[in-house]
């Protein structure tokens, strides 16, 4: 069951504690396997994409770019979980790291890593309770779901990566003095429109529903202030990104149930449907051959540009959400 859960980036476990439960994930070895399974298909998709377009370098550039972002998340997570800020001034031995909500057999480092992989890969399985994480780590977890393209889920990660590739190529491609073209196809009004709409769905859902959550479900949060806000934000982020992991701390209510179900559906299928139209249009386009005047998307510079666009575009839209939640909390601890 574990393999299905992990491979399919499903994340729904047999037990409520998910992979934290020893029956699901008994040893560090099985943990490693679970992590591998998580991103196996998603990364495979990116590589396969490269093969399909006839140039595996295209795939590798994206895999590397995404790995860079993931590495940053891994580092942040590990540093974050190395100590519990609430206990920082006290006479407590923190050498084992922030063990609140963690499984002893995994410890803080492995749980931190697992958290990064699961939110990045839109899997949602957990080996620790995310509500107990320190603020920096929590920020990173939410950031992974905001980006929704750091490998991402099976298939939908690839789609989101492509959304950002198209947006990157459009903005930056102009700087080269040509009308933007990706893989030899000109990016014109119709597909730009649809790609922009696809990009907007995710932040729109998260912002409007978190707002509704604050209005109608504030009482469902466990903690006050930044932490509570993060609980709400995380829930909707997880739904919109089809992650499935929970910050926990939210008590169930019909409002939350129904709204999150709605967000799940629109978040997943909205993007899919729009991008299918884009794919159709690209299929019929005339291909312009490459020459040295074309901006190439299989170079390291494009990889860097891709990272920049992904980070900046998402940062610009989601920053307020982080500030009111985990990031604000993180800054408070400095």
């Amino acid at each position, binding site marked *: 069951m574990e393999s299905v859960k992990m491979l399919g980036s499903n994340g729904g476990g047999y037990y409520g504690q998910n992979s934290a439960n020893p029956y699901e994930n008994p040893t560090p070895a099985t943990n490693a396997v679970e992590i591998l399974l998580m991103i196996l298909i998603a990364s495979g998709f990116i590589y396969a994409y490269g093969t399909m377009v006839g140039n595996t370098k295209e795939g590798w550039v994206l895999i590397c770019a995404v790995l860079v972002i993931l590495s940053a998340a891994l580092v942040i997570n590990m540093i974050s979980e190395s100590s519990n800020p609430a206990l920082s001034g006290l006479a407590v031995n923190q050498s084992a790291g922030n063990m609140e909500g963690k499984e002893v057999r995994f410890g803080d480092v492995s749980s931190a890593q697992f958290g990064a992989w699961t939110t990045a890969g839109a899997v949602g399985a957990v080996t620790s309770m995310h509500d107990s994480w320190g603020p920096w780590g929590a920020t990173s977890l939410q950031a992974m779901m905001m980006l929704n393209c750091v490998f991402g889920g099976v298939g939908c990660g690839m789609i989101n990566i492509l959304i950002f590739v198209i947006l990157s190529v459009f903005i930056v491609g102009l700087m080269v003095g040509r009308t933007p073209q990706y893989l030899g196809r000109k990016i014109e*009004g119709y597909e730009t*429109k649809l790609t*922009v*709409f696809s990009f907007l769905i995710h932040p729109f859902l998260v912002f409007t529903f978190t707002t509704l959550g604050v209005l109608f479900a504030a009482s469902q949060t466990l903690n006050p202030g930044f932490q509570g806000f993060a609980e709400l934000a995380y829930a909707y982020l997880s739904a919109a990104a089809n992650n499935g992991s929970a910050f926990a701390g939210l008590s169930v209510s019909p409002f939350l149930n129904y709204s999150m179900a709605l967000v799940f559906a629109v978040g997943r299928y909205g993007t899919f449907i729009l991008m299918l139209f884009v794919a159709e249009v690209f299929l019929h386009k005339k291909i312009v051959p490459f020459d040295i005047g074309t901006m190439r998307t299989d170079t390291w510079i494009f990889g860097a540009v891709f990272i920049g666009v992904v980070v900046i575009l998402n940062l610009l839209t989601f920053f307020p959400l982080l500030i009111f939640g985990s990031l604000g909390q993180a800054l408070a601890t400095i």
Partner: protein
Amino acid sequence: MYMLASQIFMEIIASSTTLIYIAFVILGIILVGYLTYVLIRPERF
């Protein structure tokens, strides 16, 4: 006349911070609607 009018005006302003905020939100929604239209049909402009 002038005093009365400005008094009424001030009273309205004082009690209407929420009203103003609601107006702000509605205006915002209208702008979003306008922008959606621009997104769908940019040629119209």
